[in-house]
């Protein structure tokens, strides 16, 4: 492993972290992909790969992570997008729609209604005027 390369990366990254910490307007986004057995069967591995790639391409400040099954087996693959205290769930994901999802939800701050799934705790449950 080329561990010596990490020194330069650490310097660069810590400068970025300081800048981010100083900017209170920077908001926290988190994407969690459901990675239980059924999610994997329906392609969740390809979904998380694509989310990581597109978040990188769009230079988004977002944490991409995974968890066990959400219990929404009939609409796998599924992810939840968290922003501050809000949560929106998207189902029946396909790799080719990930870019549009990230642009709509994270870059523009809108809900991509066509793939949104209303579950308890999801802001999608609020009236449309929200």
């Amino acid at each position, binding site marked *: *492993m080329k561990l010596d390369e990490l020194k330069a990366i650490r310097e660069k990254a810590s400068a970025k972290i300081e800048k981010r910490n100083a900017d209170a307007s920077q908001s926290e986004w988190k994407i969690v992909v459901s990675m239980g057995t059924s999610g994997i069967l329906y392609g969740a591995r390809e979904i998380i790969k694509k989310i990581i790639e597109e978040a990188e391409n769009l230079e988004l400040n977002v944490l991409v992570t995974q968890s066990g099954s959400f219990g929404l087996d009939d609409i796998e693959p599924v992810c939840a997008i968290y922003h501050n205290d809000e949560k929106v769930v998207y189902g029946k994901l396909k790799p080719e729609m990930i870019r549009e999802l990230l642009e709509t939800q994270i870059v523009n701050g809108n809900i991509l209604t066509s793939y949104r799934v209303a579950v308890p705790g999801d802001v999608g449950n609020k009236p449309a005027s929200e």
Partner: protein
Amino acid sequence: MYELSLFVLDLVQNSITADAKLIKIWLFEFESENFVTVTVADNGKGMSEEVIIKAIDPFMTSKSERKKKIGLGLPFFKQLIESCEGKFRIKSKSGIGTVVTGSFPYNNIDQPPVGDLEDTILNLVIANPGIDFLYTRANDKNKKVFDTRPVRKMLGNDAELMWQSAEMIKWFRNELKR
């Protein structure tokens, strides 16, 4: 599932759910010894004897009552390994961790392709900034080891915050896909 790497992903998700902080993954494919073995070991919360039995045989019945199934991942992996004329093993201890292994002959015709295991590991490493991974893959000619522990040490206190930076993602990709 049609790839061994998808089963590995499924086993690793079990380890993640069990709050493992270190997950070790081995794939050995030795044609000379006619032997393939895949192992996922973790230091998560482990299982009691009772949970292991239930986990392996989810449709086990007692008296007339059918016990609730608790999952399909482990039975599925066990079935795959046994259909490859192999041996499935699970060892677990509450509070210590879990080791799941499947071994089967190299020359059996029923084994699924491995699939892109490096890519699977890459995305696991990136998506789990708080977990260390030790990945070892070897065959008769090559051995490859990837360990996030020295990486975390080099990055220092803010390692988790740096983990998904563009620079780190590129570094992980170069290391694993080399």
